[in-house]
């Protein structure tokens, strides 16, 4: 957002917000301790609007649930923007000072009238207007989102349309107001920060910028390839085209986690060589030519991870790794040695200090400070810098900190790629359940009383129309495949929609039927919207 890849606000700020838009996020289950901070805000009188096709456990804490039709987020956001402008509630002083392209945005959203948006989204016009007015007139307001926004073929447009609302109202760049994409993995923020992006060096420095590269080349002692690499989705396309013939996969399980996973498995199996470095023999590892067993990053190895509020924190070894498992950095160092480069045997702290010397936003974060201060939020450029609770304060500075103004984006409504049909009349969406996590390689290891396994949630009316009862095993098909799974009849899910988790691929291989259409800018697949058919199993 506005040139930095991170949530703008710290957790404490949501406790002080007046209006919360929880948009495409079931934080109550997917980010439970962040939701504690949200609840503190609600207890102190904040108003929450939950935008979600499902009446999720998070939505039940909201003042208003806006149960939109799946994939109509851009239309809703543009409708909110239009209503704010129509009511004269935009923050014109902020717009004039800090943004560019307002007039074009105003003209672009003009057709998104309340009536039109109600028709597209299924959300009553009065609820849209109420949310728009509440957000625009709040002293402090935040928009929180997760994969309900990003896992669409137009996920980037979804994000941009939400950013527009913050620019329209000045709800960004100051304490209590902001844009908060909640991170799904304990170090997905840190991974990007460390340069695990095709076009970035650590600290979001640009790979294609010769000055940025030169700094790294001096320390690394080798020239760097200036050509950006491929993101995961493009890698699979390259496998399909035969331009990628080998892969080295560290701590990822694409054979289960990719949409249309049967296709992904076929591509992985067809490689000349697949190396998998993981703590488990995952389904991906089962396809590998070489498996490098590694230690558990948060309990068997020292290092750092970075959270959703950009807080860098220490992880520490508490137990020794089993058998022949080695730390990731040692495996990579050993591999380099076999390839003819000796990096020595640096400790995690030495590696971190090298990173600090290259990434200005991490420079002030010594291991000692991270331990003493409960972690630090980037940017933290100096040893006496306290870290940054929120980003983009420059939007409020007189000269914008010497930067260009933040641009409005023009986004258009485009529903899910896969349209419903007579053959596939139901909409399937997937998400997380409280007790489990992703493909279950970690969370599958403990039993608990609230686990219900993988079941397909269906509205009582849909179930009745199909003659299906709660708990019945059915066949669920999409244009890509079919699985058998049990039905959970749920009044909280609207008619026409079906929901399931993706935590138990060994029980229900759900990603063999999800849609692998993907966003051309982010590379993220449309896990959130496939067209399916549910059928009774034939007996006898």
């Amino acid at each position, binding site marked *: 957002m506005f040139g930095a890849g991170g949530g703008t606000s710290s957790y404490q700020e949501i406790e002080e917000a007046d209006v919360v838009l929880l948009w495409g996020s079931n934080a109550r289950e997917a980010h*439970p*301790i962040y939701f504690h901070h949200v609840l503190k805000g609600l207890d102190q009188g904040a108003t929450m609007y939950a935008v979600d096709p499902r009446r999720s456990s998070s939505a039940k804490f909201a003042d208003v649930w806006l149960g939109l039709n799946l994939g109509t987020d851009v239309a809703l956001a543009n409708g909110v923007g239009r209503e704010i402008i129509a009511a004269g509630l935009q923050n014109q002083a902020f717009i004039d000072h800090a943004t560019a392209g307002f007039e074009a945005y105003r003209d672009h959203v003009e057709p998104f009238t309340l009536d039109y948006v109600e028709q597209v989204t299924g959300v009553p016009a009065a609820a849209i207007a109420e949310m728009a007015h509440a957000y625009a007139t709040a*002293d402090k307001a935040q928009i929180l989102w997760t994969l309900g926004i990003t896992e669409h073929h137009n996920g980037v447009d979804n994000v941009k349309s939400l950013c527009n609302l913050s620019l329209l109202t000045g709800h960004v760049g*100051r304490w209590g107001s902001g844009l908060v994409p909640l991170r799904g993995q304990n170090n*997905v923020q840190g991974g990007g920060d460390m340069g695990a992006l095709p076009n970035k060096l650590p600290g979001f420095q640009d790979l294609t910028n010769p000055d940025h590269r030169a700094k790294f080349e001096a320390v690394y002692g080798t020239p760097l390839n200036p050509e950006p690499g491929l993101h995961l989705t493009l890698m699979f396309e390259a496998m399909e085209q035969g331009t990628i013939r080998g892969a080295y996969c560290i701590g990822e399980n694409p054979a289960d986690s990719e949409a249309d996973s049967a296709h992904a498995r076929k591509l992985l199996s067809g490689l000349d060589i697949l190396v998998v470095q993981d703590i488990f023999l995952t389904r991906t590892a089962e396809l590998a030519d070489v498996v490098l067993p590694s230690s558990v990053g948060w309990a068997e190895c020292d290092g750092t991870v970075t959270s959703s509020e950009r807080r860098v924190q220490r992880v520490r070894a508490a137990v020794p790794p089993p058998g022949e498992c080695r730390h990731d950095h040692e495996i990579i160092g050993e591999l380099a040695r076999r390839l003819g480069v000796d990096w020595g045997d640096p400790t995690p702290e030495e590696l971190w200090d090298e990173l600090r010397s290259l990434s200005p936003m991490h420079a002030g974060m010594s291991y000692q400070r991270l331990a003493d201060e409960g972690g630090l939020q980037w940017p933290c450029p100096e040893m006496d810098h306290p870290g940054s609770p929120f980003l983009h304060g420059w939007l409020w*500075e007189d000269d914008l900190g010497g930067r260009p103004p933040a641009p409005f984006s023009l986004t258009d409504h485009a529903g899910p790629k896969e349209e419903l049909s007579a053959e596939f009349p139901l909409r399937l969406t997937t998400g997380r359940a409280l007790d*489990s996590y992703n493909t279950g390689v970690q969370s599958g290891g403990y039993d*608990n009383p609230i686990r219900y396994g993988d079941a397909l949630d269906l509205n009582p009316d849909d179930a009745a129309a199909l003659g299906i009862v709660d708990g019945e095993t059915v066949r669920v098909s999409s244009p890509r495949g079919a699985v058998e799974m049990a039905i959970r009849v749920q009044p909280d899910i609207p008619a026409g929609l079906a929901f399931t988790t993706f935590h138990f691929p060994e029980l229900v291989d759900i990603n063999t039927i999800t849609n692998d259409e993907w966003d051309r800018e982010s590379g993220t697949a449309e896990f959130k919207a496939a067209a399916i058919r549910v059928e009774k199993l034939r007996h006898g």
Partner: protein
Amino acid sequence: MTLPTNPSGAASEVNVNLTVNGQSVSVPAGTTIHRACERAGIDTPTLCWAENLTPVNVCRVCVVEVEGNRTLVPSCARAVEEGMVVNTDSERVRHSRRMVLEFLASGVDLDQAEGLRRWLDEYEADPGRYDQDGLPARTVYEEPKVQDNLYIRDYSRCVLCYKCVEACGDDAQHTYAIAVSGRGFDARISTEFDVTLPDSACVYCGNCIGVCPTGAIQFKTEFDLRQASDWRPDEQTVTQTVCSYCGVGCNLELHVQDERIVKVTSPADHSVTHGHLCIKGRFGWQYVQPVDAPTRQRRP
């Protein structure tokens, strides 16, 4: 350009002056007497108080004498006032604290309430003087409730401090799976209609265990080791790290005995968790245990 609101963190630092045990103390307005005592280096026993919970004022073990007040006041909840004269060590305070501790210890099993046992000694409490026919006057006795693999509830150890109820409810989790039911000797922490925990609204965050001062609600791992006389806290290491699930960055304290994780807590003073976790952080670590532990996954 002018900001509509000022960045937080600049709380009003108006100081209040008071006297504690004859010593002058100056603390920010709004500070509790308990906190002011702490600043003055005076230790105060507490039971129902915790830094991550709102005071409920039920245990009365932290009471102090405030000049001009008819009754003793709970220091955990009462805010300081300008010119206040506080006495924490008068005979009246010591007597009251001793009585409270004796009553509690005579009624329930405090063997595992390590924090509290120190105060029983300090105040020379003698719960044995309520024994009848040589037996403790235990008003609460029942078998531990073992209903799943994550928690046990042993109400013989419960002093009804309400901490678990607060952590399950308004102060953290907002699940409201437990409350106090019954009156007098029949008062118990209970699920709705006393259903089993798996049948209740409980989501197994373990935040009740995190705040329980007596072991009345306990991790099953700890309970099993104690039953086997194999709970050895002196030999355990505690390592602070970050949870591997989701991106919130919850700090975990891994309690390790014989290279096995035996329980997980979180620091109450950390800005991310305030000591509270979810089921995954609290219990989702089985896969790290040595391979003889029950595990779905094969470790290479």
